């Protein structure tokens, strides 16, 4: 039961994030989440056709993510890992992590870029096929956070890579990350 309740919250959050005015879509999805037997779900699914275009897009296509820690404090990694637990279960949105940058659509980068990882980061980016999206994950990657530029710390990610989406947070919660990842689907369609 816990899982169901959590999913409902997440769904609602995602919908809100896309379009605050779009209350109709909320009303449409709610019965689906609350549906208790398979027949109900079938009926509700048929109604999804009438959903808002934006919501349908968010639930369309699949993306593969390659994560890269460029010097974070490992809280971002913990939250990203939490996305694959049964409470958030991102694979049901068609999102998954891949082991190789060559298979990835999206590169998530966390932490301020360190001196020792700069070359590895650029190599990872270059290994990805087009179209590719870069997400700066967490305050460190978005704006350098509290870390000053030092001999070993080179600062925010967009000094080195073209960043498409910024997900700020210290660290961003799994739901915030999920919102950003769903946003990728729009960008990938456009790119």
């Amino acid at each position, binding site marked *: 039961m816990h899982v169901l309740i959590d999913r409902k919250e997440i769904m609602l959050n995602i919908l809100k994030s896309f379009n605050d005015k779009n209350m109709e879509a909320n009303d449409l999805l709610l019965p689906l989440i609350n549906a208790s037997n398979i027949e109900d779900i079938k009926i509700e699914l048929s109604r999804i056709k009438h959903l808002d275009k934006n919501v349908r897009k968010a639930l369309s296509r699949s993306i593969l993510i390659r994560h890269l820690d460029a010097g974070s404090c490992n809280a971002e*990694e913990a939250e990203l890992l939490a996305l694959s637990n049964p409470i958030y279960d991102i694979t049901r949105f068609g999102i998954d992590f891949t082991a190789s940058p060559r298979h990835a659509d999206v590169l998530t980068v966390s932490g301020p870029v360190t001196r020792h*990882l700069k070359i590895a980061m650029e190599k990872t980016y270059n290994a990805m096929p087009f179209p590719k999206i870069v997400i700066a994950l967490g305050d460190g990657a978005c704006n350098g956070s509290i870390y000053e530029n030092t001999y070993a710390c080179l600062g925010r990610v967009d000094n080195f890579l073209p960043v498409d989406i910024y997900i700020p947070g210290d660290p961003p919660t799994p739901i915030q990350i999920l919102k950003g990842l769903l946003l990728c689907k729009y960008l990938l369609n456009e790119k």
Partner: protein
Amino acid sequence: MNIANRDLTFARLMSLLKEYHLEVNNINPNHLVFTIERDHLQNAIEALYKENDIKALFLTMTATDERQLDGKYKLHLIFLILNTSILVTFKVNLDQIKPSYPAVSKLIPAAEWFEREIHDMFGIVALGIDLPPLVLHRDFPHGKYFPMRKDFELNKEVKISEVPHQFTQPHAEGMHQIAVGPIHAGIIEPGHLRFCTIGEQILEFDAQLFYTHKGIEKMAEGKTIEEGLILAEHVCGMCSYSHSTAYCQAIESLSQVNISKRASYIRTICLELERLSNHLADLSAICSSGGFAIASMPAARFREKVMQLIFKFTGHRFFRGLNAIGGLNKDIKDSELELLKKNLQSLKKEFQSLEKMIIGSDTLLDRLETTGELNFTQAMNIGLVGPAARASGVDIDLRRDFQYAAYHDFIPKVHIGTEGDALARTETRIKELYTTFDLISEIIDELPSGKIKEEIPRAFPFPFQGGIGITESAKGSLIHWLMLDEKNKIFRWHVRSASYMNWRGVVQATKGRNIVPDGPLVNKSFNLCYACVDR
């Protein structure tokens, strides 16, 4: 510990070290600083370790650049005298030109990494051993720049180039090398690993770490103590609260402020909650590395529930912003505490079924048993800490042996394993989880009312002296060593995390009898952070 006992130990230490020390200072009632002559350093260490009634535990070792004060570099070695809660610092004055000292790691093998780090950062040489680069990679101009020296500017640009690391090369027929990282297949932090194998068996294993080295210790210099606290929270995400507590304790020991009972109790609750979430993450990781997704997923779900509980309880999933120097920033309502207690009771019941799943699976046990063994002697030599050390039979838990925060009122049961393999490390964590569940409920029952934050005096009595804060995080003991200047700004801050000590354990445990698929399993059975090692 009573005062008579303490005085006895003090007198004993004085007589042991009387030939070697120049001067003795007392920073706070439990902390003795001996200034030792450089040439007598090894003798003094031998004297400290020789006697049976004094059991010294090596905690950390660091250096400071005090050339602007008295023209010297200083070396600081910190020990804990077990069963007494007494801290001993050996301070050694080193010359300004070509600073060097007789190598400590010949007597204390655990000090090897510290000596290499001090060599990288200060250019201080440990005589008699090899000092290959550790923290700064090979492309850094070693011998030209020393980042922790005071005359090195914080934001100095250092050219980056690609210089290959040096590893043990395949040296026999049929041997080949597997390179992993620094960008790994899973969502973990960066580190470069090399396995030398014959067939499936791992013969040699090397790890190149310090990829996420940001120079946090250097960043903190010249900052106020409040700014330093924020940096301390960001040293590591997983043990964020343990780090910030250790940092606060270091300042509280320097300013001789005793935090209120309520604050220390709430701190202890949070420290235990952090242990809960960490151990559950570790169990989940061990199961998934062992190919046992059936238990890995429930453990991950369980952990997420604890994280949500932490969020409701403190306002942040990683406890950030809760700790303040002198206590806490935020009080916790009694109703929230009741809710926490109720939730934990139901979680404890749920955990029992998870435990059955993990321990009751023959396939998983088959993977864990005799994997990554470390015996007692190896563990002591490496200086292992935390559950990994206890699984090898080392009976040390600083919650019991140092008794910070509220642990003198609630002494936790310490669980000792014998086998020292991945299974023992898993079982130690499971047992500790039960202790944690009980401990939190006990503390909530006894929680006194009162204020949560003490005033910190403007002027501290001990400028240019090292204050020490210790906590036993989920991964092991971590130490913050802090020196303030006369304006209350940070002069030098040194962090020794649990993972820093245990990484050499992973390297030791992986080579030898294990096969390649065991590599990740051994790694996860320690489940170390990279961020707080690299800093």
